[in-house]
Structure formats: structure tokens, C-alpha cells
């Protein structure tokens, strides 16, 4: 079962990550930085799906189980797909995807499900882009 891309989130936050840089500071305050890689990584994508049906909320739990939790990576909000996770984003489609920077998304933590009322739940999904 793929990530439930048919659903559009009610809010989305994205952190662009960083290149693998190690910073050394001398006692004088001078800073030396060493770049260890050519690709930006550690992207963070947080998606919240408010007041969706329990059946739809269950899709995220099923997918989390399918990816064996935080183990397996998957494709979402990538360049080639036009999925719901990117709904409303009118900038360049590569900007918030992981694949353009050579990353793939995996779950950073378990999806958080909050029951709002009978049959209605809110789900928050935290993804991290890894190389």
C-alpha cells in the first residue's frame, strides 16, 4: 500500500535540511567548515490531516506498518508525482520533494492520531529526507 497521496493535508511545514558540513571553531573564534557531501539532506516534511475519517486515518497506520515503521523509505511529494501531499503548493514542484536532492522520505516518527469525535480523527505525519 503506497503512502495515501489521495488525501490533501490541511497544513504542511517543510524544512530544507542542510549539506553535511562539519564546523570547527578555534579558541580565537575563527571558524573552519568542511563540506563532506555534495547533496543536501535531512529534509523535514510535516503533514497534518485534520478532521479526516477514521478510515482515512487508518491508511497512515497501515502504511507505517508496511514501511516497517521508520525503516523503509518511500516516494511522496516527489518531482514526478502529483500527489495530495503537495496540494496547494504553487512553487516549483521540485522544491519540497526529496528526490530532487537525491533523498527519499521515511517516517521520522510514528504517525500521531488524535480522535476528534466518533468517526473523525486528525493525523500528523513527520517525514525526514535521507540519502
Amino acid at each position: 500500500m503506497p503512502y495515501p497521496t489521495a488525501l490533501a493535508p490541511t497544513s504542511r511545514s517543510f524544512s530544507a535540511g542542510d549539506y553535511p558540513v562539519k564546523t570547527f571553531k578555534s579558541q580565537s573564534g575563527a571558524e573552519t567548515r568542511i563540506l563532506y557531501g555534495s547533496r543536501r539532506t535531512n529534509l523535514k516534511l510535516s503533514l497534518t490531516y485534520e478532521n479526516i475519517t477514521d478510515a482515512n486515518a487508518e491508511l497512515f497506520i497501515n502504511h507505517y506498518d508496511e514501511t516497517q515503521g521508520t525503516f523503509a523509505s518511500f516516494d511522496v511529494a516527489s518531482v514526478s508525482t502529483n500527489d495530495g501531499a503537495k496540494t496547494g503548493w504553487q512553487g516549483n514542484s521540485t522544491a519540497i520533494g526529496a528526490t530532487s536532492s537525491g533523498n527519499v522520505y521515511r517516517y521520522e516518527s510514528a504517525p500521531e492520531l488524535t480522535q476528534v469525535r466518533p468517526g473523525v480523527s486528525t493525523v500528523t505525519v513527520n517525514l525526514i529526507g535521507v540519502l
Partner: protein
Amino acid sequence: MTKVYTGRDGVMQLAGVTLAKVSSFSLQSDLETLETTTLGENIRSYSPGILGYSGSASLLYYKDGNNAINTANLLNKLIKTGTDGVSSSDTVELTFRWVDGTDNNDIKLTAYITSATMGASTGEIVSVSISFVGTGALTTATIS
């Protein structure tokens, strides 16, 4: 026959007994709405959430010929001695009625009294104001 209801048609009951000297009451129902608007949409959409009831009433502080105070069983839910505070059994059965001859239009609910105000002012009649919040579903709703 057509009818416009006035304050004269209003009755407030506590546990099925009409309260004396009620000067006003109001009942409000509120529906919580859950927003389902998603990114990419320009118009808000909602799903129905939790429905609830609340209201208030104002009564004259009145002692009848049997020395019974009309507001006693309302006020004693909040204004009482002891350290136990309010328990789950401190509910009241309130009925709000609009009378048209023998035809009663009733809203009945179980409620907690959430506030009670009383005082005394020179040259004024003492009145009691209460607020309540309904718990559970309406017992009766014959308003149509």
C-alpha cells in the same frame, strides 16, 4: 390559529415542577464545527462536531406561603457547605416550556448549574441569576 409567543407563555420547570417568579430564561444550542478545508482550497468547509446546550435564567428570590424558597433546589447545587464540591449527581432536570393553551412546546434537559449570582440592592427586588450547561442529550424537544 396563528400565535406570537410572548414572555407570558414561558414556563420554566425544575424536575417537572413549575418554578415561581421566573423573570427570564434563555437556552442556547451550539454545534462545534470541525474544519475540513485542505491546502489548495479557497473556500472553507466543515464537518459537524459536538453538539451542546447551555443557557441562563433569572428568577426573583421568592418565599411562598409554605416558606419554600423557589430557587432553593437550584442554588443548593453550588452554594452549599462541606468540602466535597459538586458531584456528578448534582444535576437538575430543567424544562423550558412555551404554552399555547393546552399545547406545550417543551425543551427538557439534564444540566449542571455552572454559576449562581444573588445579592441585594437598596430599592430593588432581590433576584437570582443562574447559568447552566446541559449534559447528555435532550430528553424532550417538542418545539415544532
